[in-house]
């Protein structure tokens, strides 16, 4: 699966200049700003960033699933097959959720309703977009449980979420998400709450399902290991903006933004006793207002302009672009 293959394909979903704001005591604060990202059919895109960088909020904006009354899209557009989904009515949105775009969230235990049985929750996901009833419905539920490799599906369907492990709950979440064969699955930190062996199982499952169904995958993560494992293309977010985007190999081999470079340096092997390369300073506070490049305070190469003006994204290679003043003058190799 090479990103270039899809270069000519039109994007399935495309966000342009998306700005998402959160209501706080001090008024509305933009958390995600100028978010441009597209996902093509069958492609796996990763959004990588640290906590509070706005990556989850950006993903939820794509589905119009922001917490009501507390966050809203305050600018930009999201086009799905050419339709702007920000203007859709509730009924049209419901027809789209689960059927076109589905979601699995971070904490598999709390993503399932504790007082409703696994079976009922799964059937609910099926009937939301189909007329299956009775035996056929049950058979479809069993089939989905098999698809996500849950042993003894008959018995598990009668269980309640608290009786299953985190890994099993995440498989159930995946089963619900793929119930109506969506064309895009958004996975918000799908393995963060899981152990490394279970993480590998879930990632493998996602890859297999993707191969079998041809759906596109948008993975939100903070872990470059997951990115390397899954993604065709990756967007790096920092303080509400995409600072670099490109094909995964290109980003790993030739990162152009100092932040990406810093993070990737951390993932390399460092012998015992040697100091790890640090990124100095703190992760910016959630929704902190600033002028200039948000990374300037922590950037070892920051210059005067970085603190004054926010850099725009510019192409630095095939499908590879970054928002950094230093790339202007070619100072960052």
């Amino acid at each position, binding site marked *: 699966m090479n990103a270039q293959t899809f270069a000519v394909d039109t994007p399935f979903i495309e966000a342009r200049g998306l700005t998402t704001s959160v209501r706080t005591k001090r008024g509305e604060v933009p958390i995600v700003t100028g978010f441009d990202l597209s996902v093509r059919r069958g492609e796996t895109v990763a959004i990588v960033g640290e906590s509070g960088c706005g990556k989850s909020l950006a993903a939820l904006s794509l589905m119009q699933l922001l917490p009501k009354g507390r966050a809203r899209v305050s600018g930009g557009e999201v086009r799905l097959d050419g339709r702007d989904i920000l203007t859709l009515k509730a009924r049209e949105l419901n027809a789209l959720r689960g059927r076109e775009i589905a979601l699995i969230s971070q904490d598999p235990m709390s993503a399932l309703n504790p007082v409703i049985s696994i079976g009922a929750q799964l059937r609910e996901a099926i009937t939301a977009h189909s007329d299956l009833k009775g035996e056929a419905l049950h058979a479809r539920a069993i089939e989905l449980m098999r698809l996500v490799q849950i042993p003894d599906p008959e018995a598990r369907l009668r269980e309640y979420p608290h009786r299953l492990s985190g*890994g099993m709950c995440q498989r159930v979440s995946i089963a619900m998400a793929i119930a109506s064969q969506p064309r895009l699955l958004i996975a918000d930190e799908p393995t963060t709450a899981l*152990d490394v062996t279970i993480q590998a199982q879930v990632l493998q499952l996602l890859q297999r399902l993707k191969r079998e169904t041809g759906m596109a995958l948008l993975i939100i993560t903070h872990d470059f290991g*997951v990115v390397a*494992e899954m993604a065709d293309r990756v967007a790096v977010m920092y303080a509400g903006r995409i600072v670099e985007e490109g094909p995964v*190999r290109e980003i790993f081999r030739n990162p152009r933004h100092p932040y990406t470079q810093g*993070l990737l340096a*951390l993932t390399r092997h460092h012998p*015992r006793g040697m100091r790890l390369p640090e990124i100095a300073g*703190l992760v910016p506070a959630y929704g902190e207002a600033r002028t200039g490049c948000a990374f300037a305070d922590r950037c070892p190469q920051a210059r005067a302009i970085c603190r004054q003006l926010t850099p725009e994204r510019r192409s630095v290679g095939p499908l590879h672009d970054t928002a950094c003043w230093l790339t202007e003058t070619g100072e960052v190799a």
Partner: protein
Amino acid sequence: MTLLSVRNLEVHLPTTHGVVHAVNGLDLDIAAGETVGLIGESGCGKSTLGKTLMRLVPSTGGSISLEGQDITHLDARGLKPVRPKIQMVFQDNASALNPRHTVGQSISQPLRLNGWSKRDARQHTEELLARVGLPKDSFDRYPNEFSGGQRQRVGIARAIALNPKLIVCDEPVSALDVSVRAQVINLLGDLQRDLGVSFLFISHDLSVVEHIADRVIVMYLGRIVEQGRGDSFWKSPKHPYTRALLDAAPAHDPDAPRAVDKPLLQGELPSNLHLPQGCPFQGRCPLVEARCRESVPQLRRAEGGNQVACHLVPEPAEPAVQPVPEPVYS
């Protein structure tokens, strides 16, 4: 010199659902100045082990000795002189600090409890703040004014306040942002070099342990299944579980083979309410044989220098070594 010596430790915790067999007959030695990394999945008993060493969780069998003194059954008064020698750094930095105490109060607490005057404690606390890289004015501020990484530094300052011999670090960086992790790990490394303190470094993050640990221990269902010196451990893991664990970690390399085609360890860590007879790993082991269900394999030396608790790993004594079959996971 052996600082901490644990023999045949057993921790069985009664709960309403039954007895949790958290630690089941575990031997562990930590030398002065050594960093021991402890890895394993959540629920394998590593965290409980750490708290048992701190005498925060009661042990139900075996012994714990610190500097030759048996501390297994000391009461509160007997523990008083021992407490300063062994301290702890917690995973959840928000929960580890009392939100009603200033950072200065939190750090000077162990000093005050050990009879330091208020002035001396304050002076030493300010030195500690500088030592862990926090500004001096942090003293009178409250934990909620700090970021996760900074709070973790406060927790570390509190742990080193009384110059302990051993610090149990329970997942000290897993709640931190990636870009901040390195700062905290470097700080821990610096402290160890300067203070000569020993670390028991509990983590599920293999790369962190690989970087920091002199010796690595792998736990499964409350037992040690493999241990070895840093380099040899990572080069030649012998236990099928260790190999699976190492395999499961993502490669950080987009050109590495992807999980979709890899054989993976299946299943999950089983319940520790009822231990299986025999090898704890038998339920998930792709190589399992009849003898694995009969007796618990004991830790013994294997080729390459690691100690392994697996019936299938041959003794290294004979020169002609039969290689362990590669486990294949369905």
